[in-house]
């Protein structure tokens, strides 16, 4: 379908002017008043497009609307016409001048079309109530004229989901009774074919019994997994009834779980009452709601049994799996509404769990099963443990590539966070490497979910391991890709990018030398230890341009932010130190995906500063490591942002006010190291291999040196000398040729400011090492101690000094 044609047609439909539209409406009105023909259909199709193509309202001629409504309800209208009229009216909805009512509908099929229009009005005129009243009128009248009741059930389902509370008690009971009939007592004989046709024999062939999906004769009552050549009306209703069963049970369930009924049946094992409720004779005496629950239970049990059979047709096989999921969901609802079902349900489900995973696609039932055990697990801790292990340990490592399963499992984890007990949470936290496989393989739809999930996964014991894993997430993507390619039993369709060939990486994956590292990367549980994966970064370099790896790399910065905001909530001093060291260490060893390094560096630097702010004494405690970090001049350019942040942090937090253990020796040692660094940086000439040092680094170094000098005042003369040299250097012609004008200007101005401040050592100390009180707003509002006053005085003094200086 050429998109240009679509585009132009949509454009035309949108741009039709009002006058032309009204003329078209008149034409439509004329056609509707005549006998329906292909011209009518064509005109209505166009009218539908015109109405639906724009999000702004289209006002049609009153006569046209009237005729559309009329045609919809005529007994003689062909289905095609009815459908179009209903569709046009629905597309215009909600709109105010609708004059349609379900009383006009001649049969249930028409009622269905009319209802679709009425329910689209947003219940402005109590349409939902009218529709439901009409439906129940039809239901109560046991012999509906015209077509069948099966068109009504979906409407009812929609009605109760739009407006819960709209049905009355007797209506609810009526429908519950009917549902029992349809679900349990549908015919087990096949239906007759609709019409004989020219070649059919005159004698009526006896319809045979319905069969199971594997061809065997049906062993019990009819369900959606029973099949045959033709279906009877009540068998259609059986299918419809099951389709809406869960919605209905939820709707008509007990409001108050503390009713007398629930109290009596609260003991799941061994009580005589629960044994009695298992027999069907007693159940006939139950009120409609309870009877329906009993029948629903039997239906689910039958479905679970039927799903064991080997279906002959693929469509039936797929339906079996969907039925298993639905049966578990319905059983969950039943047990919530009536705990006496729990005893019988648990034995069913234990058998189910054993079968799951044998058939590809059947493992999808694991998530509703886990949900069931989450809701009712106190009764069966052994079984629930097995299910959770399967869900968290086996499934992610085997099926990380299935987008639907990934979504369901992660949705399950995020949705139920409030319900998890400490045991399950512990399991979840230990399984984070496995869960990250989903994220690594398919990051775009899952990133937001993981951001919500991370706070629950982060734990003091595994925080460092998790941070390493997050930084190596693109490696994990590459490793998973290699795992799939190397798999001995490949799936029918390659799940990886077949156009991307990486023979060297495949070799490395199979090389026994690197087995340990790859196994560590692909582990299913948190191991508590940390392995350096730097060799893998090198080996997996060819895969860095793979699209999937690039997509994962894009998600990592967001995840890192989420990780840090979670971990800083509870991290103690020791953990903060370890995290800071990790940031420094990993800053230089990242997997080289294009643009990944730059983005991650930005995040790591800002998080380093955040950690320092959280715990100012960090700088003093990690003085040795920080000194080592700033000692290496060769790689400043490649890690400029982290370097700048570390230098700034040193200037800010290496003081007695932040940590009493800070000594003058430490300050002096840092001073010397930074001074030497700044000297080297400014003296070296830029070349192709060693680009110019960024100006921010220079100014930060200068500022930090000044800050340190203000604390250890013997250093002031050295710094002043250095700064005036810097100022001269910034103005020299050689420097101007190497750097941009704004940069040299910035360096010169900063050097001047710092020099000025150093002329008044006590002021410098005040400015660079403010006491805690200075940061309080009160300090600035209180007119007696206000900082502005002090600053004004200082600036006047500085101006006076500056005017006396040459140049």
């Amino acid at each position, binding site marked *: 379908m050429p998109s240009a044609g679509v585009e132009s047609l949509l454009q035309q439909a949108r741009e039709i002017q009002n006058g032309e539209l009204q003329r078209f409406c008149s034409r439509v009105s004329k056609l509707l008043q005549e006998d329906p023909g292909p011209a009518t259909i064509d005109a209505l199709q166009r009218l539908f497009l015109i109405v639906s193509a724009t999000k702004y309202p289209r006002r049609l001629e009153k006569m046209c609307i009237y005729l559309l409504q009329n045609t919809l309800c005529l007994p003689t209208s062909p289905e095609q016409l009815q459908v179009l009229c209903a569709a046009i009216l629905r597309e215009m909805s909600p709109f105010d001048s609708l004059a349609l009512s379900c009383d006009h509908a001649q049969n249930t099929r028409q009622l269905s079309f009319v209802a679709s229009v009425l329910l689209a009005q*947003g219940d402005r005129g109590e349409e939902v109530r009218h529709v439901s009243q009409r439906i129940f009128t039809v239901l109560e009248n046991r012999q509906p004229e015209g077509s069948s009741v099966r068109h009504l059930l979906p409407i009812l389902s929609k009605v109760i989901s739009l407006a819960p509370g709209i049905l009355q008690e007797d209506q609810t009971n009526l429908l519950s009774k009917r549902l029992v009939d349809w679900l349990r007592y549908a015919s087990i004989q096949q239906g007759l074919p609709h019409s004989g046709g020219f070649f059919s024999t005159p004698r009526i062939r006896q319809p045979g019994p319905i069969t199971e999906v594997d061809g065997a004769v049906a062993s019990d009552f009819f369900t959606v997994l029973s099949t045959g050549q033709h279906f009877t009306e009540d068998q259609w209703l059986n299918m419809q009834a099951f389709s809406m069963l869960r919605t209905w049970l939820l709707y008509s369930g007990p409001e108050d779980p503390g009713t007398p009924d629930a109290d009596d049946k609260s003991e799941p094992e061994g009580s005589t009452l629960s044994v009695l409720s298992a027999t069907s004779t007693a159940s006939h005496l139950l009120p409609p709601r309870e009877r329906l629950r009993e029948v629903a239970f039997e239906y689910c049990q039958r479905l679970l049994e039927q799903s064991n059979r080997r279906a002959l047709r693929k469509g039936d096989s797929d339906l079996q799996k969907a039925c298993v999921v639905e049966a578990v969901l319905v059983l969950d609802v039943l047990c919530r509404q009536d705990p006496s079902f729990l005893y019988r349900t648990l034995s069913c489900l234990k058998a189910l769990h054993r079968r799951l995973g044998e058939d590809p696609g059947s493992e999808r039932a694991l998530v509703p099963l886990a949900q069931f055990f989450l809701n009712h697990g106190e009764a069966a801790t052994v079984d629930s443990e097995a299910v959770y292990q399967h869900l968290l340990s086996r499934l992610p490592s085997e099926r990380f590539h299935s987008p639907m399963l990934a979504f369901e499992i992660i949705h399950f984890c995020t949705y139920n966070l409030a319900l998890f007990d400490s045991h399950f949470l512990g399991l979840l936290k230990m399984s984070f490497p496995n869960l990250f496989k989903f994220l690594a393989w398919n990051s775009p739809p899952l990133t937001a979910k993981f951001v919500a999930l991370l706070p629950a996964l982060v734990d003091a014991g595994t925080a460092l391991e998790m941070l390493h894993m997050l930084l190596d997430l693109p490696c994990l993507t590459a490793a998973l890709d290699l795992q799939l390619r190397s798999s001995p039993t490949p799936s029918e369709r390659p*799940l990886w990018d077949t156009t991307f060939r990486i023979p060297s990486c495949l070799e490395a994956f199979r090389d026994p030398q690197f087995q340990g590292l790859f196994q560590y990367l692909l582990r299913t549980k948190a191991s508590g230890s940390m392995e350096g994966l730097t060799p893998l970064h090198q080996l997996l370099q060819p895969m860095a341009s793979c699209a999937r790896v690039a997509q994962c790399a894009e998600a990592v910065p967001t995840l890192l932010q989420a990780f840090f905001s979670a971990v800083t909530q509870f991290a103690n001093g020791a953990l903060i130190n370890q995290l800071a060291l990790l940031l420094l260490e990993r800053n230089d060893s990242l997997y080289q995906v294009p643009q990944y390094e730059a983005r991650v560096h930005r995040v790591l630097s800002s998080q380093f500063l955040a950690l320092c702010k959280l715990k100012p004494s960090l700088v003093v405690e990690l003085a040795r490591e920080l000194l080592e970090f700033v000692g290496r001049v060769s790689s400043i350019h490649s890690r400029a942002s982290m370097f700048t942040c570390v230098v700034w942090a040193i200037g800010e937090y290496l003081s007695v006010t932040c940590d009493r253990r800070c000594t003058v020796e430490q300050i002096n040692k840092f001073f010397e190291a930074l001074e030497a660094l700044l000297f080297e940086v400014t003296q070296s000439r830029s070349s192709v291999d060693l680009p110019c040092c960024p100006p921010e680094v220079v100014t930060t170094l200068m500022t930090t040196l000044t800050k340190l000098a203000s604390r250890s005042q013997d250093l002031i003369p050295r710094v002043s000398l250095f700064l005036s040299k810097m100022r001269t250097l910034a103005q020299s012609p050689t420097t101007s040729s190497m750097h941009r004008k704004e940069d040299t200007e910035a360096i010169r101005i900063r050097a001047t400011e710092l020099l000025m401040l150093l002329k008044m050592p006590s002021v410098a100390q005040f400015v660079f090492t403010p006491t805690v009180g200075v940061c309080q707003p009160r300090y600035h509002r209180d007119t007696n101690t206000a900082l502005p006053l002090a600053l004004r005085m200082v600036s006047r003094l500085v101006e006076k000094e500056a005017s006396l200086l040459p140049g």
Partner: protein
Amino acid sequence: MVHAFLIHTLRAPNLEDASLCRVLYSCVFGTEKSADDPRPHGAERDRLLQKEQILTVARQVESLCQLQQQACGRPPTDLQPQSSDEPVPLHEAPHGAFYLAAGDPFQEPKIVVWLGVLPLGFALVLDIHENLLLAESTLRLLARLLLDHLRLLAPSTNLLLRADRIEGILARFLPHGQLLFLNDQFVQDLEKEFSAAWPR
């Protein structure tokens, strides 16, 4: 229950295509009662909001599908069969699901299940407690029926002017947004019924 079904354009990744994502067909099954709005033209505003919500879903499906296609390395013309008589391998088509939080853009949280058959995308907007496996197979079924009965991938057809067929299919296979447990025989019967009412 299904809140909405939509068909929209899906551009292949890597193509220099400046056109926008267009919703070609959408059906919202029933509208919830909106909050009391004293301003006039509340009905029109509601309709506008609904249309924009659907467009948001379509755009998101398109971008996720493109990302998935890129990640799998599938060339853009992979799923366009030369002759429309060949069955389209729907079980290999890109597909997925994503979550829409409350307020963004629907009032209640929703889950969207989508299927990409270039150049079209199909999506179902569901309530969050739905049976996703059934939703997935229903969506595949709808896509198969629509592709077959409307011959959507043949160059000359135009989906925009044949909404009645789409409505006919939806009325049978997803009536009022109700997901149905249809075994193969039920599907065949409904298809026969549809073909009788809408001869090709």
